[in-house]
């Protein structure tokens, strides 16, 4: 059963940046693209579980801060070694200035 949960204020994420969000013991990463579209993925890199919120967002790509593994955060696609497994994405939307993500 899925549910929409409030993750953060939209204005609290800079354009082309990422913030962490934890719900029910699960870590998520919430992204704001350069075009002001919001996205969400699992919070940890699929390679060695490093938190992606400390990484670098460039365009539609998040780069892990530990080994520089890269994902397309809009689709979750892993873009090459050392990340080989895609990352799970979650639908995200902004309602009245709050970012919601659909989990479950």
């Amino acid at each position, binding site marked *: 059963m899925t549910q929409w949960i409030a993750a953060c204020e939209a204005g609290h994420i800079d354009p082309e940046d990422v913030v962490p969000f934890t719900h029910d013991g699960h870590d998520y990463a919430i992204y704001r693209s350069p075009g002001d579209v919001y996205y969400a993925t699992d919070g940890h890199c699929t*390679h*060695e579980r490093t938190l992606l919120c400390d990484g670098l967002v460039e365009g539609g790509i998040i*780069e892990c801060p530990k080994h520089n593994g890269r994902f397309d955060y809009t689709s979750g696609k892993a873009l090459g*070694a050392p990340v080989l497994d895609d990352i799970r994405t979650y639908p995200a939307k902004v309602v009245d200035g709050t970012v919601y993500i659909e989990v479950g």
Partner: protein
Amino acid sequence: MGRERLERYSLLGPENQAAVQAGLAGGAWFRSAVPRNRMKELMRRSDYPAVRDTAIWIGLIALSAGLGITFWTVWHSWWAVPFFLAYGLLYGSTSDSRWHEAGHGTAFRTRWMDEGLYQLASFMIMRDPTTWRWSHTRHHTDTLIVGRDPEIAVMRPARLAKLLANLIGLVDVPMAFALMFRHAAGRLTATEADYVPETERARVYRSARINLVIYAATIALAAGLGSWLPVVLIGGPRLYGACLFYIYGFTQHAGLGENVLDHRLNTRTVTMCAVNRFLYWNMNYHVEHHMFPMVPYYRLPELHEEISRDCAPAYPSLWAAYKEIIPAILRQLTDQEYYVRRELLPGAAPFNQPTAASDGRARPLTGVTAV
């Protein structure tokens, strides 16, 4: 002692699993607190510095090769030697730092430029681009964790004969060719299999076959011309031009703590002059690099300033570093628990030493469990 030492550092030996059980593998490493906005500035990349520096680097390689070839073939002059030596050092030593930076994907903003430089530098330094990418990934996960890190250059006790012979590549080059033949035959070593995923292995075999064709063509050309020149230009520099690679490289970790979870205990930052920093692409800022591998080489001096409050003072020169490294290595020949432990500045964040096993001495871990 030799066999025990190799078994202890082997990724196939008992220390690998013992490090996992002791909580040292994939551990939580210390990082200085740097505000997010400042870190974003430092991580941000631009093509310009690396394009400029790579153009200068390739230009110097071409110039030194051109002058060496000209002096040798046209005037049959020994004046060719210093130019070939410069060529050899640029090819056989400084390709290491280009390999390293491009392997992290931090040199350029444009991805294909990083990948192109990585492939070129991997060939020059005689490293398989795939196995070494994974080896270096492990090195960053488990830096100087005994039995986990495949890139520990100086063991305790050190293999002195190997270290000295490698100043002219006498161990690493034959090993590189042995690996090339093994990979070309479609096989990895057991150690490589520990860190190279199945899906990546076809790349290893393909690049080994390509490299062997290039070296075979070089040797055939040399034989056809009746001249050493092709070998002096391709492959040979990894022997006669390798010394700087090791001289720079030993400063990174030699003599420092093992089995720690704080790069300030196992990594060295050395202040170097502008020429050395160009040749080494700022890898001398090695504590900074390990703590924040996302920061491109040209921003490392700024990162150094940013976190200097938490770090022991940088070594003022290569000479100063070696005044410490050589006695430490010699002492470790008889005292394998000895390591250089730097003093932090007043007010620095304390060392991250979560367990007794992570105090730097690297005592055998068998029976130690995580707390």
